[in-house]
């Protein structure tokens, strides 16, 4: 093998080395170039274009017309937008709280020495991999007046509920489907976090007389904080932007009771062809997701990061 240093005259070694370095950095750029081009077009150009469109009036056909911040000022007085915004926030909050509590509870239970723990993990994860469209269609039938859900609540003595027919219950129904479809993911991430905590901590505290509840509250939960924050942040982001279940199961109804913001953006942009206004809504949605993420990290994440 001809080593580079021997192959060239000594005085050229450093120059040769520099050119080798330059060559290698060009090779590196070559490897990342397809990806960089992709993200430049389909993410950064796209988001810049969305921002531009949000200042225009556009029907997707004739050239866009610049109207400044008129879309944004109109949205702040638009009852459709404001109602979708409040539905989205209510739905997100109503779903994320049980989602995290159920997942945390199941993860704590699975972290004990449980027979068939692997089987439970697989079962809980099945709804996560089932297509959201399938989940929405199945649950749409389960929530029928004489469907499985009303049969189940009948067992505990509750009269049949008007799940998808009433504005109030339709949102609850969507929350239930979202929790069903998402808790398996959160449970597994939290369980992984619990398994990385050395059991000796809890044992030591127990020997010193701490109750099981105190061990969980004062040792387990603080050590689990990074994972809790992670699943809460990803769940909130997913819920704020969720589209499939409200679209397929209720199509935003009854009336506009479950017309979440992503659904309103879709309808405004592609059905009513108000692409400018839809883009302004999309930017407000982006802002909300960023604020929520930042807020969670601020509130819970200072010592986590």
């Amino acid at each position, binding site marked *: 093998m001809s080593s580079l240093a021997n192959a060239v005259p000594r005085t050229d070694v450093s120059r040769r080395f520099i050119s080798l370095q330059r060559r290698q950095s060009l090779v590196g750029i070559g490897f990342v170039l397809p990806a960089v081009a992709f993200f430049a077009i389909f993410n950064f150009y796209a988001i810049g274009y969305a921002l531009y469109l949000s200042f225009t009036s556009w029907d997707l056909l004739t050239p866009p017309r610049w109207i400044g911040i008129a879309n944004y000022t109109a949205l702040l007085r638009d009852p459709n937008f404001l109602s979708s915004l409040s539905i989205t926030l209510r739905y997100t909050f109503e779903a994320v709280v049980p989602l995290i509590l159920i997942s945390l509870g199941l993860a704590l239970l699975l972290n004990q020495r449980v027979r068939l723990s692997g089987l439970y993990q697989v079962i809980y994860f099945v709804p996560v991999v089932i297509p959201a469209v*399938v989940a929405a269609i199945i649950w749409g039938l389960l929530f029928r007046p004489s469907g499985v859900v009303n049969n189940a609540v009948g067992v505990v003595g509750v009269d049949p509920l008007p799940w998808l027919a009433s504005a109030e219950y339709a949102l609850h129904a969507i929350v239930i489907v979202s929790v069903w479809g998402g808790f398996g993911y959160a449970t597994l991430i939290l369980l992984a976090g619990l398994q990385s905590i050395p059991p000796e901590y809890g044992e030591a505290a127990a020997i010193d007389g701490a109750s099981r509840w105190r061990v969980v509250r004062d040792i387990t939960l603080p050590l689990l904080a990074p994972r809790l924050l992670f699943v809460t942040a990803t769940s909130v982001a997913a819920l704020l932007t969720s589209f499939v279940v409200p679209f397929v199961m209720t199509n935003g109804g009854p009336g506009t009771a479950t017309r979440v913001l992503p659904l309103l953006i879709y309808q405004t942009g592609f059905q009513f062809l108000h692409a400018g206004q839809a883009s302004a809504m999309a930017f407000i949605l982006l802002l909300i997701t960023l604020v929520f993420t930042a807020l969670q990290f601020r509130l819970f994440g200072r010592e986590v990061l």
Partner: protein
Amino acid sequence: MSADVTLPAGRSLAANRSWRNELMTASLATQVLLILAAIVTVIPVVWTVLSSLKSNDTIFAIPMQWVPDALHWNNYSEAFEVAPFGRYFLNSAIVAASVTATTIFFGAMAGYGFSKFRFPGRDVVFGLILVTFMIPFPVIMIPLFVLVRNFGWVNTYWGLIIPGALTGFAVFMMRQFIQAIPGELFDAARIDGAGEMRIFLTMVLPLARPALATLGILTFLESWNNLLWPLIVIQSDEMETIPLGLTKFSTLYSSNYAQMLAMAVIASLPVLVVFIVGRRQIINSLMLSGIKG
């Protein structure tokens, strides 16, 4: 409990074990709760499979019946006649396979480039790719549609595949994995005169196989399940993917419950098979994804 110190070793071990038992061993209540959760989780799935084999008018019979009186397999064959589900299935398979292939290939290329080479602006560009994690799809769907329309890809496989051909997560995951492979391996091959593309194809890709498999599984699941993008970019029946075709079917034939459920089963089969085969990889990758920093 200073007395513990003077206890014989055996005694303190026994005490320790009993603490461990109390803390770690699942009680009956734990088992009951876990089983209850599992039952609630699978009931919709079990009901779907059973109901896909019932006759249409017994699905909402009062009182409810769980088990079909006879196995009506014809729900499946009839659904394939009412709508071109075979074609939907093929479209979904083509799109999901293509998206998976491009994602792991270009993800691995970029992951290799970002982890094993130095070049100006590397870390800034990688940071920008991480920023794409934060962009919700509804925010960019209108510009993406306009782009695809300008390229002439509306209602084509290109239109379905290209905008989803890579994700920031793929680049991130491959970079993390390839970073842990010692770079000396590649330097040795370089000294032996191997070309850069050959090193990537014959060394980096095989060494990164576990990460490629996991990324491939996750990408396939996500692509197969996607509804919103096909809904935007597809305009004719024969180009629909299975989530889109199933959604249309459920509104057009909203009382063909049995056929709807039969196709719900068909639509879920590939992802369930992939999940069962790749469950180890999926679960392991979740364990990693929760780690911050």
